[in-house]
């Protein structure tokens, strides 16, 4: 299957300077996002998922910065964009849905104002009524009643707001939607609905979806591929079925084993990973997972492994799968 690359993330690092030292939140990460795919990004809290998502929009909170690498989107290096170019890129090509639907809409703006504003920011020549027309079409397509268009955010339920956010994200035919914990704050039923809807949207609009979540079950259900992060490193990425079937990286193995109710999981006891994730101001040398790794070898604490492709479209960042001489 020939997949078309939408975005290439190359050797990307993000650091946040703090008083106690600089936090290496994303460290030399490499991966691609393909057109029309749903890529699940998982990992423990604080491993750098949100940071990576924001980096794709070059929206790292200062004084944090992208300290290394580049992001190539549809063949263009967005690291070279100036402010205006970047502003146009945000929302037009890549949109973001955030965790808290209660607070991610402007409380004093109606839904229609959000949509129209988004259109006009990117297409200043578009007239208000044609922008309104497009907003109506979008809202209906997402199964939101037209009358909701004139509601204020506080008049909508959480699930409804996330759909509105999705609508805002799609109104300019974005190529990529980053959903950062977008379903986390919703109840299970609403969450399932939104998940269904996101999948439908992918099918209908051909948009790619980067699904950042703690919820492995959700990834299992929705994603085509899964990317696993640990302490700022991308440790494993590949086809969802293959990785769930036979995870290669010891961290992925531990992560999947500690999740209840996964299809393949027949363990009676949930696995509890020993230890704590490292402090990212002073991460362990070599592989950042080695202090917790059941298979740690001497080299693991000395040199960082590379992310190597062990099979077509399946890469692992672990000394177990590469020559130690390399």
């Amino acid at each position: 299957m020939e997949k078309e690359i939408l975005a290439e993330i190359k050797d990307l690092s993000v650091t946040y300077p703090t008083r106690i030292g600089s936090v290496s939140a994303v460290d030399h990460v490499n991966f691609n996002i393909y057109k029309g795919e749903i890529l699940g990004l998982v990992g423990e809290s604080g491993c750098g998922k949100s940071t990576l998502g924001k980096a794709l929009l070059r929206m790292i909170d200062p004084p944090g910065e992208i300290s290394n690498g580049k992001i190539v989107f549809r063949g263009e290096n967005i690291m070279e964009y100036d402010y205006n170019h970047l502003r146009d890129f945000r929302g037009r090509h890549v949109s973001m849905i955030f965790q808290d639907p209660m607070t991610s809409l402007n409380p004093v703006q109606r839904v229609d104002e959000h949509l129209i504003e988004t259109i006009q920011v990117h297409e200043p020549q578009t007239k208000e009524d044609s922008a309104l027309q497009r907003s109506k079409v979008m809202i209906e397509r997402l199964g939101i009643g037209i009358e909701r268009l004139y509601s204020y955010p506080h008049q909508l339920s959480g699930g409804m707001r996330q759909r509105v956010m999705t609508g805002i994200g799609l109104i300019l035919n974005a190529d990529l939607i980053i959903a950062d914990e977008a379903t986390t704050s919703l109840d299970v039923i609403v969450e399932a609905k939104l998940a269904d809807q996101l999948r439908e949207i992918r099918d209908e609009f051909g948009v790619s979806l980067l699904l950042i979540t703690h919820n492995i079950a959700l990834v299992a259900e929705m994603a085509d591929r899964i990317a696993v992060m640990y302490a700022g490193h991308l440790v494993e990425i590949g086809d969802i079925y293959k990785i769930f079937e036979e995870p290669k990286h010891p961290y992925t193995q531990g992560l999947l084993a500690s999740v209840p109710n996964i299809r393949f999981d027949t363990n009676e006891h949930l696995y509890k990973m020993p230890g704590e994730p490292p402090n990212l101001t002073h991460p362990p040398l070599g592989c950042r997972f080695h202090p917790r790794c059941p298979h740690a070898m001497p080299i693991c604490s000395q040199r960082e492994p590379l992310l190597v492709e062990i099979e077509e479209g399946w890469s692992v960042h672990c000394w177990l799968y590469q020559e130690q001489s390399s």
Partner: protein
Amino acid sequence: MSSSLKKFLVTRILLTIPMVLIMITLVFFIMRVLPGDPIRSQLGPRVSEEQADRLRERLGLNDPILVQYGNYLKDMLTFNFGNALTRGERPIREELGEKLPATLELSIPAMLIAVALGIGLGAFSAKNRKKPVDYGIRLFSIFIYSIPIFFLGLIFQIIFGVRLNLLPLSGRMDPILLTTFESKTNFYIIDSILSQNWAALKSTLLHLILPSLTLGLSLTGVFIRLTRVNMIEMIKSDFITAGRARGISETQLIYKHSLRNTFIPILTMIGLQMALLIAGAVLTETTFSWPGMGRYLVDRIALRDYTAVQSTIGVFAFFVAIISLVMDILYALVDPRIRY
């Protein structure tokens, strides 16, 4: 108007009545507790005790205190106010009819200056947080807040009035023009426009600059700090991040999205600042010999002119109540989340 909004307004208005009542009652009794009385304050030892007593009798000051209080309430509630006790015993309505427009003509531009400058600088400061211009604006706001009004007024008078000789030092209008100026509403700006007296208009505006700037600047510090603090909080909110993520420019995020949300606490603040505005107006009027309510009040307190003082404060209280009512209504209009 929706019925819930009506209900809100009615309750809100009804609530202001006890507020004003308490205020004017307090004033009544405080005035009586103060040593001295209107007769002695004005006439001093020139009149005999007998004559003074006859005057007291005529002015109703010998009535039992509760009777006086009752009369006073009646006068206030009918907006009749009665007569002053000193300086010719003119009807207070007439006197306030001259003074109130003068005070409003000073306070409204001052408030506009304070709000526009305060919010503008506060927002700019928040946008440029931790840059030199932010420190500069913050320093300015502390300076302007702590400097006494009369001192600020004095500095302006010295610089613009005396040294540069650009602006008049005091009063509302050139005294020569004033002799032929016919005032119907006592708002000199309105009167001079209505009578197409452009020389008078120019003179009025020139006279207004220093006092309104003094009063306005003295209130600006509070608005700068309030706007800045609220904006900085607002800029951190999720919807601003979300707005940035869909390509809205920083300028729009600050001046449209954050500012509109920041207006909500600011509106409340404007209502609360009314007391400060009135106190400031009194000082400004004294500094610039501005013939408004503030100077009138100071003058009549010294004379223990009970009715004049009571009525003036009653009118001030009424205005504070009205403004805070208006602010509440604006608040409800700006913030769609407000439910009545």
